């Protein structure tokens, strides 16, 4: 998880986002190095999801710069489909395509976007589905899969594009508790293989074991940032303390 050489993959400068008159993101500055796993935490409404969605411009930033490999993707005139190939996103509600099988879902990106042949795309999909432990479910439609299985297919689908960075938007929040571990296991394996990841989550144990750094977001700004063990044991900012203790209370009940 610790990168072999320091190499900035993502640099966010002064990212602002306003919905009408309500500010959602207030000037976020953030750097992610290749191979780093950044965990973002914060109360609901803090802007975590909006932040992730701005990174692949599913939401439009109101101001700021987003440099991936040195190129500002928030600049006008950027071809969105092209930059999105390089950024993988996994959603809280999976968003699998219900009219395709698991294999079809994972092969869809390579086929339609990367213009691979059906055979090549399906081969890649088979590999990835095996990697997430779903080789026996390749012909199943999403409706027949459990939440955890659907989310693993969704991860495979994003990986099929061979992105440089993976964004995870509360991907275990909608899962039954017993299915969460399976998905986190896949994400941990991914991190160990050196994938650059930004993970929005409430799973603090995962953050401690897999994260290289935790960023705490509140009201659209980063209020604290540091190594997982440091933040979790002795958070300095009052909001971080409040947020973490409320999480622990939830766990206890």
């Amino acid at each position, binding site marked *: 998880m610790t990168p072999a050489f320091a190499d900035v993959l993502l640099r966010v400068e002064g990212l602002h986002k306003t919905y009408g008159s309500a500010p959602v993101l207030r000037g976020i500055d953030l750097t992610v190095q290749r191979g780093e796993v950044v965990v973002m935490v914060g109360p609901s409404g803090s802007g975590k999801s909006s932040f992730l969605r701005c990174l692949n411009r599913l939401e439009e930033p109101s101001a700021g710069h987003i440099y991936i490999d040195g190129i500002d993707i928030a600049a006008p005139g950027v071809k969105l*489909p092209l930059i999105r190939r390089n950024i993988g996103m996994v959603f809280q509600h999976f968003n699998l395509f219900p009219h395709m099988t698991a294999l079809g879902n994972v092969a869809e990106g390579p086929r339609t976007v990367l213009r691979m042949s059906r055979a090549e795309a399906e081969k890649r999909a088979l590999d990835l589905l095996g990697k997430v432990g779903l080789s026996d479910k390749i012909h199943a439609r999403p409706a027949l899969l459990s939440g955890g299985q659907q989310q693993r297919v969704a991860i495979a689908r994003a990986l099929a594009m061979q992105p440089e960075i993976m964004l995870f938007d509360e991907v275990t929040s909608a899962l039954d508790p017993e299915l969460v571990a399976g998905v986190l296991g896949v994400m941990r394996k991914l991190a160990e293989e050196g994938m650059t990841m930004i993970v929005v989550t409430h799973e603090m144990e995962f953050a401690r074991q897999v994260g290289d750094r935790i960023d705490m977001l509140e009201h659209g700004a980063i209020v604290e940032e540091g190594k997982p063990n440091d933040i979790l044991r002795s958070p300095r900012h009052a909001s971080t303390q409040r947020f973490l203790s409320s999480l622990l209370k939830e766990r206890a009940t």
Partner: protein
Amino acid sequence: MTYQWDWSALWDNLPLLLDGISTTVVATAASMAASLILGLPVALLRLSRPAVSWLATVYIELFRNLPLLVLVFWVFTALPLIIGYTFSPLASGIIALSLNLTAFIAEIYRAGITSIAPGQSHAALALGMTRVQLYKRIILPQAVVRVLPALGSMWVSLFKDTSILAVIGVAELMYQGRMVATDTYRPLEIFTGVAIIYYLLAYPQALGVNWLYHRLQVQE
């Protein structure tokens, strides 16, 4: 003073009535085909930016609110004078039915498209699909299945609406019925027969549409 029924008038002239049915089917099929095709661009226009979607809205509201009879007469009588070209009664009828039906089908398409959960669009765009690819691979394949029952309903309504074309001289079932009724002086038997024929044709189709509704339950 009981009425003397004489069904021979109906049986003897059945072939004429059956001829009418073939015209009914042709008019229905042609109008449906045209509207299925034209309805899609109108629906997509309605879903695009407000600066241009108003065009589609005007079309849809105009042709949904205009009575079909008025439209049929307008296409048959007024349009030729405006553009200097006369259509055959059947062509006029098909044009009028298509103008009307396209408006309804565009709304059906629109409802089908917007019923696809936005999360799927997000996922597809996040993979790097263009909007065209999104529609072609994800939205339209699912929307088509969802709107099939509503389209089936439209077909059955259209089938009945072709009877209106009789007033401009299209030799479909109703027109043939009127002709035979006048010739045989037996309107009761003939028109009763025509009604029964429509029922025997349309009712099974309506049952078919009900089956479509049951079969294609939407899962989200």
